[in-house]
């Protein structure tokens, strides 16, 4: 009898249904290893797929939606995810992540990344404390200055806090290709662990200067909007996957887009956001299998360009 489900998908399915956790012995040797990248400033490995929370985790106190988002986060952790990115700008998202991580008892797995988002450059410590309370964490893994808002004052304080051991890593963020010149200047001048910027198959501006500079300066890079806020899916519509996807063990367009992003040599992690368990399952597929090489990346670009 033929096995109808590919082996990789079978194993992933086992992992995501929790069976792997119940029968660790059965799968211990065969579990595929997640793809990781190291944070240049310390060498700490991170899974290349994280999770964003803009819009998707801003569900307030809605009990029905909290339960549904809990399933999404649960699957994310089960599939080996660690980096969760939020911001005080995202409404209730920080509080929601905090509540759900507590419910799931997953503080150990979580790489907590949030942002300082206030014009008041003297409010950095208070802003960090507010976020700590919402997330229920004693110390953030990564604290970023959101959209470079008040970055000079905030970054100086974040550096102090890092030196005091109050934060593990610090960084700055931009998106939508905004303020790349400023970002470049900051990357050259300041001792950053991370930068977060928009990088996806349609928005590749960062490839010109920022990604090479990040490699040169040893700065980890987080790609936000890896699906261009979802617009990439509108572009492909119901088209079937190209033949190249088979060679790369890619099962969905989501995986196709994400593997492109995280296969850039400067990239540390991508943080797609979703409201759907099925989409989380697809997205986490990009954490396993093969990544495209340079030639294959070029073919991927041509494929999307021709859509």
């Amino acid at each position, binding site marked *: 009898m033929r096995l109808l489900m590919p082996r990789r998908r079978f194993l992933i399915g086992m992992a995501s249904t929790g069976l792997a956790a119940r029968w660790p012995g059965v799968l211990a040797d065969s579990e595929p290893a997640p793809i990781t990248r190291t944070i240049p400033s310390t060498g700490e490995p991170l899974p290349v797929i994280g999770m964003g929370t*803009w*819009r*998707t985790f*801003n*569900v*307030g*106190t*809605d009990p*029905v*939606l909290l339960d549904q988002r809990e399933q999404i986060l649960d699957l994310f952790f089960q599939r080996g995810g660690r980096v969760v990115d939020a911001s005080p700008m*995202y*409404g*209730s998202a920080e509080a929601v992540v905090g509540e759900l991580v507590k419910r799931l008892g997953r503080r150990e797995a979580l790489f907590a990344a949030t942002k300082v988002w206030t014009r008041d450059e003297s409010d950095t410590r208070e802003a960090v404390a507010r976020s700590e309370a919402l997330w229920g964490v004693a110390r953030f893994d990564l604290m970023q200055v959101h959209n470079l808002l008040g970055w000079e004052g905030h970054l100086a304080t974040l550096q102090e806090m890092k030196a005091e051991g109050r934060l593990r890593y610090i960084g700055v963020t931009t998106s*939508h*290709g905004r303020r790349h010149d400023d970002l470049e200047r900051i990357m050259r001048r300041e001792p950053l662990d991370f930068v977060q910027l*928009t990088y996806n198959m349609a*928005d590749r*501006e960062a490839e010109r200067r920022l990604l090479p500079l990040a490699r040169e300066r040893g700065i980890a890079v987080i790609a936000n909007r890896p699906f261009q*806020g979802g617009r990439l899916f509108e572009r492909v519509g119901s088209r079937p996957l190209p033949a190249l996807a088979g060679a790369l063990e890619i099962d969905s367009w989501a995986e196709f887009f994400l593997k492109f992003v995280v296969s850039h040599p400067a990239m540390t992690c991508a943080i797609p956001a979703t*409201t759907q368990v099925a989409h989380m399952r697809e997205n986490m597929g990009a954490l396993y299998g093969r990544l495209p090489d340079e030639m294959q990346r070029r073919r991927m670009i041509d494929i999307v360009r021709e859509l």
Partner: protein
Amino acid sequence: MDYALGDFLMFTPEVYLRLFERTNEALGVGLWGVVAVLVTIPVLLCRAPTLVRRLVAVAMAAGWGLTAALFMMRFYAPINWPVGPFAWVFALEAGLLMVVAARVPPARVRLVALAGGSALLLALSWVTVRETDTWQAIALPGVTPDMTAATTAVLLMAWPRRARWGLLVIPLLWCAFSALGHWAMGLWWPMAVPVTGLVFILMAALWPPPRSPSVE
């Protein structure tokens, strides 16, 4: 690469539409109290003597207050920053309506006008039901902000113009803000409520003063 209107939206349409269900759920049997008041308003406007007709403005004020406290402050503000300050503006409108209740009564309104207005508002109340497939998401005036603003504009036509204009500013601001939000979410049917609200506000601003004297 640039911003689109949707990029500024902080929440998904799913979360927004759930606000209607959650607010109605939180009201519990109180929802029937609201329905009773809503049914009484046309009766008062049609039949009641001047003194009793003033209660219409009191009921409207209570609706703005309830909307501010429950739908806006408790449920909507945590997912949408600008709604918190807007809830206070709603409370201000409630205060203004109380002032009007004390000073200027509405005119009597003809049955046909009341029937037409009520049918239109009932249809608007149903839009969220259509969108969510559950009657528990019904958007009642006095409970949900768009319907409260739209209904206020309709009812204000029973007042003399000088009393109306000041009371139309807050509904105007809200309906414009809400219409933009619906646009960003791509919720085209529910967008009909704030857009119709804007039309009502324009009508109320221009509508001739009621024929029957407002002070008897």
